[in-house]
């Protein structure tokens, strides 16, 4: 199995979720994160002092998927999350040794 981790722009969540549903993937875990990279943060003003907020709100999606599915999942996320503007984010894949569904104790791909 693979763990697909994607960092995306928050307002793209709905599109990504729909794209994943369309290829039959539903299970995922999402965290609100702050990104840092090429995309610059915005400037804020606080009683006349200006400062740059270096971090940009992003969402981080994690999906454990079957080896066979991982390329499709990555592709689906990629397409759905793309705006073409800087800061669209990343998707990376890492190996998973094992997975358990807590409710049933099922293991491996069955637990996805």
């Amino acid at each position: 199995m693979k763990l697909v981790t994607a960092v995306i722009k928050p307002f793209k969540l709905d599109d990504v979720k729909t794209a994943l549903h369309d290829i039959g993937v539903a299970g995922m875990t999402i965290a609100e994160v702050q990104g840092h990279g090429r995309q610059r943060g915005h400037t804020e003003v606080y009683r006349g002092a200006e400062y740059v907020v270096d971090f940009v709100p992003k969402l981080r999606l994690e999906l454990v998927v079957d080896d066979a599915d991982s390329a499709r999942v990555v592709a689906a996320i990629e397409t759905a999350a793309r705006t073409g503007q800087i800061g669209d984010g990343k998707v990376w894949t890492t190996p998973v040794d094992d997975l358990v569904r807590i409710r049933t104790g099922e293991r491996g791909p069955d637990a996805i």
Partner: protein
Amino acid sequence: MLRRMRVDSGDTAWVLGSAALVLFMTPGLALFYSGMVRSKSVLSMLVQNLATIAVVSVVWAAFAYSLAFGPDAGGGLIGNLHFAGLAHANQPVPGLHLTVPPLAFASFQMMFAVITAALLTGTGADRMRFGGFLTFAALWVVVVYAPLAHWVFAPTGWLAQRGVLDFAGGNVVEIDSGASALALALVLGRRHGWPRDAMAPHSLPLTIVGAGILWFGWFGFNAGSALAANCLASQALIGTQLAACTGLLGWIVVERIRTGHATTLGAASGAVAGLVAITPACGFVNSVAAMLIGFAGGVVGVLAVGAKFRLGYDDSLDVVGVHGAGGVVGTLLVGLFATHHVNSAIGARGAFDGGGVHLVGEQALAVVVTIGWAFAMTWLVGQLVQQTIGLRVSEEIEIEGLDTVVHAESAYDFGNVRAGRIGR
């Protein structure tokens, strides 16, 4: 001038206190509204309301007060500029027999103009330009609000002369803002994603802070409209309280039946709807009638807010549904429930006090006139601003959120990440 009037200190204490209470309603409204928007446009809502207080107060002092309450310029249509800049504003308002200093009255009325304009921020949530709205508000208070206030509130106004009854602003404030909100919603157009996306409130506790302040302030709004601390003010106060209560109950009962849940926002909205409905009536009806009017306001309110989804206009925070509908309900029911037992000064009695349908007719006329005037003129003013300096931000800004882009601020920073550096 003043020396010729009898100033009663108790009445003055009440009207000054009421003016303070009504002013407090606008920050309250700002909180009420800002809790209802998503976390990316919280501040835009707050600052639009604060700046509306500023702009409208200055315009009011400059000349809108005079247009509304100055000596009639002819036909009961508009006041002249005798009180412009609050000059001569220690002279009595023609036709009003006040026992309070005219400046206390001018202050009290100023706060009414402020909150009526501020209500419109709710319609434009998430997408309205800051400068554009302030320009709009300045024009609106002169073009739309001041004439209506003259017609209804000034004793020399043509609707007042016909005997239309509006104790504390059912027409001037509530229907006016509701009809104006509808026009503004049409000028602005829908939010990106509406009506598909839920756009749920980001902080209902903040909304309840605002609702509490509104409820509190409304005692000044309604009972202060007696312009004296007397039996009439007492009746207005208890009627206001009871209508808020039955409005709340009406709203959540309907909601419970329709969705299976009584909600917090529903309770607060129902209280506001009840308060709206009793606004024109509280100085003319008894306590039992107040309960019925408030209940009607709540029930009609919850039904009316659904209308926007069917009709397709994005009145974001439901000014039409709550203020417009509630104001119509209250204004019409005055025609039924007004009684000289409560207010011996009224010209015509309500239907249930033996007055027949005459007063109902006058009230209905006022409703139609107010809706027509407010809708049409607001649409014109809105288009004017839209076509010139612009009234709506770009879609890009709307998606990103007004707070960071327009106001260069974020509402909250609870965490440990955002901190930036100054001067790097």
